[in-house]
């Protein structure tokens, strides 16, 4: 398949990338791993006139401890998130979820920042970082700002990022030994989740994120409230779809999605309970 014609420029640093995107304007796009953008371009669903390749901005690929958080560079590949000893110790839910993104080829090219900035509600990592209470760091022409994951997602493929802003870092609180579970339900291993649930629990505290249950990733606050109020996993899971607004597609009707969200949330709560 052949995309529409476009220009290609490569940035050596985040600052240069932001300069370039400012220079080319609205029709320019950042290219990181390219595993969401390029397929859309090949189908001509996306037709950017310029690609600003940030794939070789080496100083944005890292995973390091920073107090009670883990800081992850936006260009860190899924495979590196999956296999990080730091994440395995402090945020195992995220490492595990990263291992469910696409297939090994995708995980070797795709980046965590690219996945989050793409804002696809069917992707695994937006809902997972949402459940974990992550904060995203964005850099623009006027410096950096932090955006809570809960404030980041505005709708299908749209986020709080301004066109000339670039996601540079993801900051995830350490899980502090919380129990966790990632329930991804799909028909083929490589596919997006039909419904996914990322959950952690520590005592009566918990976080539950839903994949593919609305036009944005969903924080299932009602489930967390129910758990905090002492509800059983089964009872709390009944509230799984309270914040959701799922759509039908070839794989699932709306009522089936709601049902799956409840079943998978119950399983996730059971699996993550101390």
């Amino acid at each position, binding site marked *: 398949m052949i995309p529409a014609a476009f220009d290609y420029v490569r940035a050596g640093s985040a600052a240069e990338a932001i300069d370039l995107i400012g220079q080319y304007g609205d029709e320019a796009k950042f290219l990181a791993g390219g595993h969401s953008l390029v397929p859309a371009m090949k*189908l001509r669903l996306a037709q950017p006139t310029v690609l600003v390749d940030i794939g070789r901005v080496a100083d944005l690929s890292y995973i390091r401890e920073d107090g009670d958080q883990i800081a992850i560079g936006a260009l860190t590949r899924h495979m590196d998130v999956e296999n990080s000893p730091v994440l395995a110790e402090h945020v195992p839910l995220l490492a595990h979820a990263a291992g469910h993104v696409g297939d090994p080829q995708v995980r070797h090219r795709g980046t965590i920042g690219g996945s989050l900035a793409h804002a696809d509600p069917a992707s695994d990592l937006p809902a997972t970082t949402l459940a974990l209470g992550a904060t995203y760091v964005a850099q623009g022409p006027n410096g950096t700002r932090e955006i809570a994951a809960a404030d980041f997602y505005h709708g299908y493929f749209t986020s709080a990022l301004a066109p000339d802003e670039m996601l540079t870092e993801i900051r995830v609180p350490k899980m502090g030994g919380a129990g966790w579970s990632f329930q991804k*339900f799909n028909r083929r291993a490589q*596919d997006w989740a039909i419904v996914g649930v990322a959950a952690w629990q520590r005592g009566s505290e918990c976080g539950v994120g839903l994949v593919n249950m609305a036009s944005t990733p969903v924080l299932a606050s009602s489930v967390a409230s129910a758990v905090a109020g002492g509800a059983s996993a089964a009872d709390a899971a009944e509230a799984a779809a309270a914040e959701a607004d799922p759509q039908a597609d070839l794989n699932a009707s709306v009522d*089936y999605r709601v049902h799956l969200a409840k079943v998978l949330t119950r399983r996730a709560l059971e699996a993550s309970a101390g």
Partner: protein
Amino acid sequence: MTMTDDTTGVLGQRMLRREDPALLTGEAKYTADLPIPGALHLAVLRSPYARARIVSVDTSAAASMPGVTAVFSGADLAEAWAGPMPCAWPVTDDMKSPTHYPLAVGQANYVGDGVACVLATSASAARDALDAIDVEYEPLEAVIDLEDALSDRVVIHDEIGTNRSYTWDLKIEESEGDVDRAFADAAYSVKERYIQQRLIPAAMEPRAVAAIPQPFGGDMTLYSSTQVPHILKVMTALTLGIPEHQLRVVAPAVGGGFGSKLNVYAEELLCAALAQRTGSPVRWAETRSEGNQATIHGRGQIQDIELAADADGRLTAVRVRLIGDMGAYLQLVTPGVPLLGAFLYAGVYELPKTYDFSCTSVFTNMTPTDAYRGAGRPEATYAIERAMDSLAAEVGVDPLELRRRNFIPTASYPYEAMTGLVYDSGDHDKAATLAAEMIDYAGVRARQETQNVPGATKRLGIGVSTYFEMCGLAPSRVLASLNYGAGGWEAATVRVLPTNKIQVVTGTAPHGQGHETAWSMIVAEKMGVSPDDVDVLHSDTAIAPLGLDTYGSRSLSVGGVAIAMACDKVVDKAKQIAAHQLEANPDDLEFSGGEFRVAGSPDRAMPLAAVAFEAFTAHNLPDGLEPNLEAHTTYDPPNFSWPFGTHMCLVEVDTETGEVEVLRYVAVDDCGNQVNPLIVDGQVHGGVIQGLAQALYEEAVYDADGNLQTSTLAEYLVPAASDVPSIETGHTITPSPTNQLGVKGIGEAGTIASTPAVINAIVDALSGLGVRDVPMPASPNTVWRAINEAQGGQQ
């Protein structure tokens, strides 16, 4: 000939395929890999509407774009064709077939129907120019539902005045009314409706074409990713009006077909016609989403099947009514597909002459359908094997026991079926027994007692499928009786070179099957040489001018047998030369291990290598004998080949999510003698997965307006390795008595047997919840809905 018992022989060895190193290293050259200097690139503009009048096509803007050399609408090329696109199987004398050209003229009839095309100096320039072609469409109502099509509420093609292409009947009774009486007298009967969803063949290599005009005189070489180079040559010559002897067709490495490349496509004709018109090479390579729209689809039937049985559950009559979905036009063998299954709706069971089959095929505004792995036979096997499970439930016996009661007895072979066809050999009980042992059928039934208790959310199910496949297409006279437009023979030439290397020229056209390996093994066995000394030439009509190509599990049982017969002719001639040299009577010579020996005189011998050199120098040949060792055979098989077997599938269904996990899959297939069991296993593995994919994953989905919803591989769910079970293969060996190798086809058997085995297993798992059927594909959502409906929405 007992090849599989002879462990010292070549036949029956699990030899690695000689084709694979080039394929695995990426060195194999597919059509799109061929370097063709100066080639123009073709791109096709496709209708976004399922049915629309083409009001106007303005190509001027596209024609002025950089790199573009020409732009054509369908109307611009209307005079380029000597005839419309071919359908070679007019199944009835009154069959209706709308005129079909490579680019639509006047009206587009499916999403993907070609409307205009561009030639440009690069593929990207051609693709970009498509966006600049301005087509004014007047959208018309599309017909998607088969029964709606049958009603003629909206007639798709004005020129034929109906959506009905044909009705084809096969009614077999001793006296009129026998079928009705059998149903009236039946102790048990079942009536079921099954939907064979549309499938997209999705061969690994998308289609690709390159047409290269040769210098002077009008000769043309057409490269294509096709499984039928010989048929393509004849049909291209007829459709374009190119004298056939000026056309050479080559199929380079071809990455799978499954029937989708058993066709003559618009792009092949466009490349050839435009190469002829421009004098430049013209090439085209399909994108995956183009392939999903504009390469043929498979299946697409509504099946109504009724079984009548006596008090013991023995079949007393079978009645079948089909509606076949032809899609928008008839492609090469589109209308014949249901006929290939028409004889098989009684499966492997004894049935008196009480059989009533009728198929009505209709046009719809969707991609044309055609042969897809199994072609008609998977559909038939699915219907009878699903209905046998329903009958077993009705009678109250185990599904395997019901099948045993109905099996054609082994002693009856060769068995003349009620249709008049003679099944060559079979032993169904043996295959079923082996499969039951392998999967521990009795043990599974016991486990179900403890696992499938009320309230259980993980339910165990086992599915059985026993099958017969009518393949090895085919005796030419039988094809004639079905109105098929060609024969079923195959050609072979065997040529011993002066240094005792052997060239085999075959009319088969491998595209993944491993013919080079298998044919070399046959020749090695027959001629007493190493397989490494045998070269197999194929898929180029200049090298292998005669042939009928590869489809319908025909290559070994027709083409391979032709090679064995040609070897016999070469040995006969060599024997005359050896006898002359050894001063012996040819009748006294024995040939084995590559050496001629005089019977009773072990010291008087001559190796084939020496005979080959004598034949080449021709210094001292018997009077009147021509030089060289070469023989040609064209073999028309006296019968189909009839592989059979039993497949069993063990599943666990999660009733909370509807997810089906295949725990085990056992395939026992009997394809007679096996030339290379490794290749047999590979065919079974791939076939089973393809059939399992129909059961669980794949469906070409259209919306009500005729838009294909599964236009990429993100929506059309071809399972990957991680999504499918390990296949446990077992074999029984019942040689075919109709050919000297004792072989039967195996390319389609896995696909034919597996789909009903999987669905039977799912329904078995859920039978305790009141589920009687689950539509295909049995996605989690579909299974969950079936449980809900059976439970009255209480789930």
